């Protein structure tokens, strides 16, 4: 992957190819050790980890979608807009199909997920068409679309929360499976992450979007349908965002046009922290998943210190983000220098 000559030994080969991932693991381990030394009994509890695992899928799912867009050299700022609109429509649906006793028919939850994913797909395709056919720069297209989707959501709800949902939905998603151990939210996130990993690493779609993100002109000259690839990518991002919305719907047991608005920029930072290049063509899902974990661990960890106000979370999060990028800069810089000093392979 990295294009550098391979050093000896499997471990160092592995390190050379995954420098960034190793760095993230190191930061996470350092934080875990710090928490173990300072707040072991409050942090290392099953319930704490279960809570974290039920929370991070909200923005984690959205970040996975943003990652796909960024690999193509684009971005998706409309994730939260899509999530809220999908959640609101699903909430309407759940209320509509609720039985008189407040319960839900058996088909309701699968149908709700199908509906949300369909909404996410349609809104994503809309983004994709703006980016590919109308050729609006992705940052503007999705920013505009985000306002539009949020606007629709506000109009539909008059700006109020859609609450008093049939209880069955939140109970189902907030339950734990496999011996009452694993939160359903985590299962959803893991499934989506695996699907995306598979798409990126095992299918032609993955190869194509990496190459499209590297050089769109060369992709066109290689006979790829750039437009179709972009539409597909934004559609996938829309579906991921809608699933994130479904998790929010369960976690808050309500839906509203302005839930989770901090997630928009947070997702982008996570993806960049995960080692995806905003210029496109580079990045792995393992890095993004680790960055998602890191954010959640930091936030939860800090909350275990009552004397530190939660206002510090932004500060620390921003500091970590910049720290990892500075580390990257220095290691890439030295790698770049090494590469530069070695003259090109002489022609035969």
């Amino acid at each position, binding site marked *: *992957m*990295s*294009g*550098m*000559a*391979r050093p000896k030994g499997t471990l160092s080969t592995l390190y050379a190819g995954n420098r960034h991932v190793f760095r993230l693991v190191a930061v996470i381990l350092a934080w875990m050790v710090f928490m173990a030394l300072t707040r072991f009994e409050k942090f290392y509890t099953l319930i704490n980890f279960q809570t974290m695992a039920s929370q991070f899928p909200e923005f984690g799912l959205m970040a996975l979608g943003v990652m796909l867009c960024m690999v193509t050299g684009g971005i998706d700022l409309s994730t939260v807009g899509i999530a809220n609109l999908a959640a609101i429509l699903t909430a309407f649906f759940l209320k509509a199909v609720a039985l008189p006793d407040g319960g839900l028919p058996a088909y309701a939850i699968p149908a709700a997920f199908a509906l949300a994913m369909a909404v996410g797909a349609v809104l994503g395709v809309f983004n994709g068409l703006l980016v590919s056919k109308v050729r609006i720069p992705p940052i503007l297209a999705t920013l505009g679309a985000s306002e539009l989707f949020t606007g629709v959501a506000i109009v539909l709800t008059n700006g109020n929360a859609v609450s008093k949902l049939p209880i069955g939905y939140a109970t189902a998603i907030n339950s734990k499976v496999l011996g009452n151990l694993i939160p359903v939210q985590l299962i959803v996130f893991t499934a989506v992450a695996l699907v995306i990993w598979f798409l990126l690493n*095992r*299918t*032609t*779609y993955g*190869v*194509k979007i*990496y*190459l499209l993100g*590297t*050089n769109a*002109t*060369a*992709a*066109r*000259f*290689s*006979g*790829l*349908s750039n437009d179709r690839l972009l539409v597909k990518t934004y559609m996938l991002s829309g579906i991921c965002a809608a699933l994130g919305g479904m998790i929010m719907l369960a976690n808050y047991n309500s839906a509203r046009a302005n839930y989770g608005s901090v997630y928009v920029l947070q997702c982008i930072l996570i993806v960049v922290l995960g080692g995806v290049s905003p210029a496109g*063509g*580079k990045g792995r899902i393992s890095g993004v998943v680790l960055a998602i974990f890191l954010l959640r661990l930091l936030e939860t960890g800090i909350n275990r210190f009552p004397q530190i106000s939660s206002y510090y979370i932004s500060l620390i999060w921003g500091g970590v983000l910049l720290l990892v990028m500075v580390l990257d800069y220095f290691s890439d810089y030295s790698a770049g220098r*090494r590469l530069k*000093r*070695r*003259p*090109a*392979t*002489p*022609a*035969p």
Partner: protein
Amino acid sequence: MFQSLLKATGVHKSFAGVHALKGVDLDIRKGEIHCLAGENGCGKSTLIKIISGVYQPDAGTIEFDGKALARITPIDAIMLGIQVIYQDFSVFSNLTVMENLALNSELAQKRRLVNWKRMREIAREAVAKINFEVDLDAPVSSLSVAQKQMVAICRALMFNARLIIMDEPTTALTRKEVQALFDIILKLKAQGISILFVSHKLNEVFEISERFTIFRNGELVKTGETRELDSNKFTYYMTGREFAPQQFVPEQVSKEPLLEVRNLTAKGFFEDVSFALHAGEIVGVTGLLDSGRSELALALFGVRPADSGEIRLKGRKTDIRRPRDAVRGKLGLVPEDRLSEGLFLPRSIEDNLVIAEVDRLAGPLSVIDRTKRRDEIRRLVDEFKIATPDPKNACQTLSGGNQQRVVLGKWLACNLDVLVLSGPTVGVDIGSKHDIHEILQNLARGGMGILIISDDLPEILENCSRVLVLKSGRIRKEMDTRDADERLILSHMM
């Protein structure tokens, strides 16, 4: 006796264990045009960077105008009158001609306020030196390559240049522009300025230089008077190999054409172009830069579809609106600009090779069959002799010739019927050029139809059985290359 302006003796330079220069000499006399030639990676760029103060030599001496230079910086070199015009000209394309010309002296004088009137004066003086006519307020991005080069030359002349080093200055120029450049070089020579002309194009070396120096693998192979050189010697010095010219003779040409173009028109570029290409033959298309030859290639491949006319592939009328349509019709294009249009430089050689056929390597649900992919990559790397220790390496680690083989390999992996090549050996050194020609000729013998679009006339004459000459968007002449020579083709081009 002639006086040396620059004399380098026994220069050594190593980079991380690679010995790039192994004790080379270079002697440039006052007011001469000296040509430095050699294949990619032979060390000529390294030597230029040492002369201009970018690198320090590990050993050896450099004298300029009789004085030894020790540890000079790029600024020192400029002060001494050494100017380098790099391949990319290092101009600011978002600024105007005037700003480009005046900025350096404004900065050198540490001025903090902009005086437009003074800047205009400076710029006007600079262009007047070589009688270069240009709109001073035009943004440089709107200029042609040749004009950008002129801007760079004017800028170089502003600092009392005594030695101007031009790094492959003709790569992107048309024949006419090359001629204009040569006129300017002669003018500079008349003013007593020495020129170091870096090139590996034989005809240019013969035409412009008085003396030459040839490097190979970091060593000096030969230096002497250009008139004692001939084309066989030149090639031998450059490559250490002897090449027998391989005139292509088509063996089995199909009766039915593979590609037939009828009255193809793209308004403003070309008009009413009709021709046929049969299996087993190589047809050349040539013309000046504005003849519409590049646009014809883009239209055939669907990047910029034609307005009217028809394209028939294997007798079937095919509507080519997008590159994908062309690929489906089994027509591929090796584009003009290999770096920006042909390759994904930071990606692996593997990805670059199989991208066009990746759908064929996939099973249901477009899951890639990894064994198939690996075998295919192995086959392509072997077949095209791509020199790399590991195909997982990034494509940018390859030399120009090898990169071009990757682009060729990408298309040949798709089992095409028709391959269109736009400038297939631009910027490729002689050895690789020869190999690429051999590959093309073998492909034609194997039953492919090949269309070479190029302004490299020796290339056309050697490889094509027929040539179409485009002028101002129309086919002026179709010739059998057996009855043609460079002069005849040129007379139809101009």
